[in-house]
């Protein structure tokens, strides 16, 4: 069983601040983390490895610093790590990213065939949920998105049964390996790194691939050139021109405040009473 897990290093967006005057991102000091959604996929892959044996290879495309994300993954138990990094990838959108990652996975396959690829449900910076499906299409793999449980895995029969979150329920799907899986958040909880894995992570010789090693055949398909979407502008959300009307009675008694507010509210929205009556029966 050989599983490739695609992980992305992202800025911890909880700590991102926008410069109030220039509207630019203030990156200084913002820590980089492994995209949180990718950890559910990595954990699921590690569980398969625990149960069936085999190898887990983590793959990331990004700047040289992204090696920290890969070492983190090794500390959790991944066996091998590949960083695809090249200036030529800069500015890649989802279409170009899926091309590059799919191409790297084909290179990985030259050593050991790949049975499954895992990707995160989405990233917290790009937040598109498109790279996973894109890789699957490019590798002509079956695609299983939003998987909440792996019910059965038959290595000899090369088949898998999963539960997939649909809008109004859960689909139980059976498909053939190799396949690409994206895992729903909350499906599992990432294990703690063991001491020995932490040591291994620190020493592990990461494979660093430039575009040639990653097997990129057509450089017009990567980077800005290979990206159909173009960011035409970045801006801060415009403050609403009208600010809230602050309800302030002379007396400042909570009861008076409430009555004044309601009078205004129901003058503005007379129909609300009907909507409330519809939802809140008499008994209240």
């Amino acid at each position, binding site marked *: 069983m050989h599983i490739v897990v695609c992980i992305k290093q*992202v*800025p911890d*967006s*909880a700590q991102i*601040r*926008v410069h109030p005057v220039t509207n630019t*991102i203030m990156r200084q000091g913002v820590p980089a983390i492994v995209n949180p959604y990718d950890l559910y996929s990595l954990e699921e892959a590690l569980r398969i490895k625990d149960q069936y044996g085999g190898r887990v290879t983590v793959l990331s495309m990004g700047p040289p610093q992204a090696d920290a994300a890969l070492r983190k993954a090794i500390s959790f138990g991944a066996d091998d790590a590949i960083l695809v990094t090249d200036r030529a990838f*800069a*500015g890649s959108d*989802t*279409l*170009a990213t*899926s091309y590059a990652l799919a191409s790297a996975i084909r290179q990985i396959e030259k050593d050991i065939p790949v049975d499954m690829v895992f990707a995160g449900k989405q990233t917290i*910076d*790009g*937040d598109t949920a*498109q790279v996973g*499906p*894109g890789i699957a*299409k*490019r590798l002509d793999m079956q*695609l299983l*998105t939003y998987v909440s449980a792996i019910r059965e895995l038959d290595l000899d029969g090369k088949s898998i049964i999963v539960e*997939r979150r649909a*809008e109004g329920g*859960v*689909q139980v*799907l*059976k498909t053939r390996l190799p396949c690409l899986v994206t895992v729903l958040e909350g499906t599992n909880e990432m294990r703690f790194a063991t001491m020995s894995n932490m040591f291994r992570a620190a020493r592990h010789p990461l494979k660093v691939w430039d575009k040639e090693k990653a097997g990129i055949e057509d450089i017009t398909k990567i980077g*800005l050139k290979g990206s*159909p*979407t*173009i*960011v*035409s*502008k970045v*801006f*801060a*959300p415009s*403050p*609403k021109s009208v*600010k*809230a*009307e*602050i*309800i302030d009675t002379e007396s400042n008694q*909570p009861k008076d*405040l*409430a*009555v004044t*507010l*309601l009078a205004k509210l*129901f003058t503005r*929205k007379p*129909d609300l*009473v009907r*909507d*409330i009556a519809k939802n*809140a029966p008499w008994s*209240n």
Partner: protein
Amino acid sequence: MSEANEPRKPARKKVELDPRLAAYKGVWVFVEHERGSVHPVSWELMGEGRKLADKLGVELAGIVMGPPGEDTRKFCREAIRYGADLCYLMEDNLLSDYRNEPYTKGMTDLVNAFQPEILLIGATTLGRDLAGSVATTLKTGLTADCTELAIDMENRSLAATRPTFGGSLLCTIVTLNYRPQMATVRPRVMAMPDYDEKRSGRTIAHPLGMIETSIVTKVLEYIPDNLQGKPQLAFADIIVSGGRGMKKPENFQLIWNLAKVLGAEVGATRPIVQAGWVEADRQVGQSGKTVRPKLYIAAGISGAIQHRVGMEDSDVIIAINSDPEAPIFDFATYGIVGNAMVILPALTEAFRQHLATARLAG
């Protein structure tokens, strides 16, 4: 994902479209349905698609794929009544349940055969699965989770705006030299259009041309969610939400009390959900639900951008916050500066009395 990388150089303004691509005309909306009903996001997109089509002076089409039969055809009629000029209909038993393979092939074939310039899909679990696959197969651009769609008349391109950097900034993305221009939009981000019983339009049927044995993935079972007792925030008329300003889980009962009087759903900010005071389904905001109720009451909520994007389209927003400088007052309709623990009970009582009087008056 480039959208999150450093903003790239602004796009060149005027672009001469490849004549082959200039032949792509019309706006399409994928009509998503599951278990016999259409997902409302499709109609919300139909309303938005109508505006884009009118701006471009082209037709708006609904794309309906499903098993042969009256149900599927009914969705075509509905698509037209919600604003489409025509409907492309693909009927095949292989399309009974959503599966990536046949739906991707069906949609890709339709696009290649009829060449739309814009294709809109709901950002649901189904829509994102399909959109990512179709865009990759067609090798075109896709902008996910847009909050605003417009036409840049200079080059007739779709200007799709979406949050970036965890919602702190917005970016506008264009797809200049590829067609169709694809975008997904989350449920409740756009308003529901009117349903016009009298609208009529034509239907164009197109075959899927696949056989079951060529489809690798099989649906073994479908387990519908048990919605009993599950929060239904997305379509609630009234929502009462609490944030970290509620201080203690016990105080959150004040939110529930007001919600009960109003027949409202209870919502919350992310820290509240993370603290486990309410279920994850109640989180409003960028990584939770987008809502657009008639009335949204926010108590002890600062109004961070990630929360704001999920609720700012509510008709009326009442904010209760002890800090007069809280950002929520920048976009709420009414604001009360004060202690939520005092204001909420007073508000609950005032509503109770007002409603009792209204009921007596009939």
